[in-house]
């Protein structure tokens, strides 16, 4: 019951008072979620802060997008998380409601002795060629063209990709398909694809480890993994033909261009967004909850957790180089909750 009280009081005095109330009632509601590894760092941070504020524990298991979808469909968790937004019919079939939670950037990383961050410049066609296996040497004409001043070695390129199914792969291959017709034709976009060349590493950290150890290799990871492992990232040419560095501002620019209003079920891939500052391989990650909740308390807590995180967790997200969702989008998401997420009695759970 304390939850209702907290909720109505939130706008007025959230801080100490609600903490007191929540701590006062011994009935903290624990919820579990599972899915994408890509947003795992920020979800963990949010969960920690949310527990400190409300006493409600959020257990998030970063098991991968596919597993997250399966678990929410099987109703073994209270919410699922996926980097690949589900289609209308997939959502309908399992009565799921989908909304975005945070936006992040995927970056190409290279292991070339002496190369510094952002020194190597790539465009989409070249990156696609490397992953297709048509560009095999670092001093290929295509690479020389985008890097006229760099001294590129005459060594073979070792392509590193994910070996497990992954939302990061989905967004990366979607981008390659958008900028390289050959890629779209021969490989396409999915959480796992038939890689024409290269070696596979398990998880973002597996790819990072392989690139770190293999001279002359190239891979792709979520930006946080590139920074924590001190891997050399590259600049990318974006939709407007400008080379940009993978920074928070570039991810923000890509996110700002997104047209969420006209995306059904928020199904929007942020790859190759227009705008001269936009990072081309930007991706949103999504949350799935059941449209009809069997446990009203838990359903409310899931929404409450994301409501709190979206409104109070922006700084935590930015520290980890994720882009928090804009205010207008948060409003839109909460309108979706009010319309589509219902309790066991059929009444809306939100607000």
């Amino acid at each position: 019951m304390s939850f209702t009280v907290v909720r109505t009081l939130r706008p007025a005095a959230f801080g100490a008072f609600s903490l007191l109330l929540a701590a006062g009632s011994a009935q903290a509601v624990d919820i579990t979620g599972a899915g994408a590894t890509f947003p795992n760092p920020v979800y963990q941070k949010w969960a920690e802060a949310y527990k400190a504020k409300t006493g409600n524990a959020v257990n998030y298991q970063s098991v991968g997008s596919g597993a997250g979808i399966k678990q929410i469909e099987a109703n073994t968790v209270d919410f699922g998380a996926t980097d690949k937004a589900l289609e209308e019919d997939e959502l309908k079939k399992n009565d799921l409601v989908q909304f975005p939670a945070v936006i992040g950037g995927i970056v190409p990383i290279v292991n070339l002795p002496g190369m510094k961050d952002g020194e190597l410049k790539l465009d989409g066609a070249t990156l696609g060629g490397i992953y297709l296996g048509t560009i095999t040497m670092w001093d290929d004409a295509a690479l020389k063209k985008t890097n006229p001043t760099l001294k590129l070695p005459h060594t073979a390129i070792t392509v590193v990709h994910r070996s497990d199914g992954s939302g990061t792969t989905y967004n990366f291959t979607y981008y390659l398909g958008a900028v390289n017709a050959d890629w779209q034709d021969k490989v396409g976009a999915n959480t796992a694809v038939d890689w024409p060349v290269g070696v596979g590493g398990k998880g973002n950290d597996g790819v990072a480890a392989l690139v770190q150890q293999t001279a002359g290799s190239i891979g792709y990871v979520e930006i946080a993994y590139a920074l924590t492992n001190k891997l050399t990232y590259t600049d990318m040419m974006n939709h407007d033909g400008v080379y940009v560095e993978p920074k928070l501002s570039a991810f923000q620019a890509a996110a700002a261009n997104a047209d969420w209003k006209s995306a059904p079920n928020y199904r929007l891939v942020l790859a190759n967004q227009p705008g001269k500052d936009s990072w081309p391989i930007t991706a949103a990650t999504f949350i799935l909850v059941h449209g009809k909740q069997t446990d009203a308390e838990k359903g409310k807590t899931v929404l409450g957790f994301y409501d709190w995180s979206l409104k109070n967790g922006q700084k935590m997200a930015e520290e980890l180089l994720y882009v928090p969702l804009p205010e207008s989008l948060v409003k839109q998401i909460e309108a979706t909750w009010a319309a589509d997420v219902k309790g066991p009695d059929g009444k809306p759970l939100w607000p």
Partner: protein
Amino acid sequence: MSQAALEANQPRIGAHPGRLGNALFGGSAWIFAILVLVLLAGVMISLISGAWPAFQHFGVSFIWTEVWNPNRARYGALAPLYGTVVSSVIAMVIGVPISLGIAIFLTELCPTYLRRPISTAVELLAAVPSIIYGMWGLFALVPLMQKYIEPAIIGSLGNIPLIGDLFQGPPYGIGLFTAGLILSAMVLPYMVSIMRDVFETVPPQLRESAYGLGATTWEVIGSVVLPYSRVGVIGAFMLALGRALGETMAVTFVVGNSYHIMKSILAPGATISSSLANEFAEADGLQLSSLLAEGFLLFVLTFTVIGMARLMLLRLQRKYG
């Protein structure tokens, strides 16, 4: 407790456990033994039913098709099957002579003060979790392979006609060969400890008579010890091969996870268990069914290996009476 009750609790040698006791013990032993068969059948049935959609969709050609494309929902098991067999064969080619050498050294040549430390060290190798082998492989062995060992192999063996193709291409460091090397280290302790034990079963009279007749150590090992213990030795190899075929985590780390069959054994590949480890959590529909079909094939493969080992042993036993 009364004196009588205390006495009743004393174990009495030769006491009759009674009809009921006999029946209970016999019955439960039966149940446990049957349970193994039931479990095996259960695994088999659930694998087949899980794999059925894949076999129905792709037909038997699933086994010899080299494609793994989750995006177009086209699957075939040839590449992982090939990788499984090749990495295990490499493991055996490297592991068998080494383990044979260690076991012979331990039982025939080793000074007593060294026997225990070496035996313990070998047994400790078996206690290392496979994920540790995987991490050690990826972080310690792979860089060595990439910088020194593979370039040397490519430069020497790669130039030999006919078999040169097996040792060519860029030195990735990870690949089937590295996976086989790690596997050889992992199966080594099993082979060594079994072989050491069976070598020790050779009656000392046989050994001593051979030495007494003036045989050299080499001759004793070749004509007395090995023939006497051949069944156990072959059993050790087969147990090791079975383990190598199914090993998962360590291989997944270093095999390269690529679903293409390359000529070179240095190139990245995939094994059945590595592909299961990589994709099971995310798979559904036809992909999940194809993974289960792979699992079924691995089951059949391991079963065949054990079956062949039995046959071989039978024939050997008949030959030597």
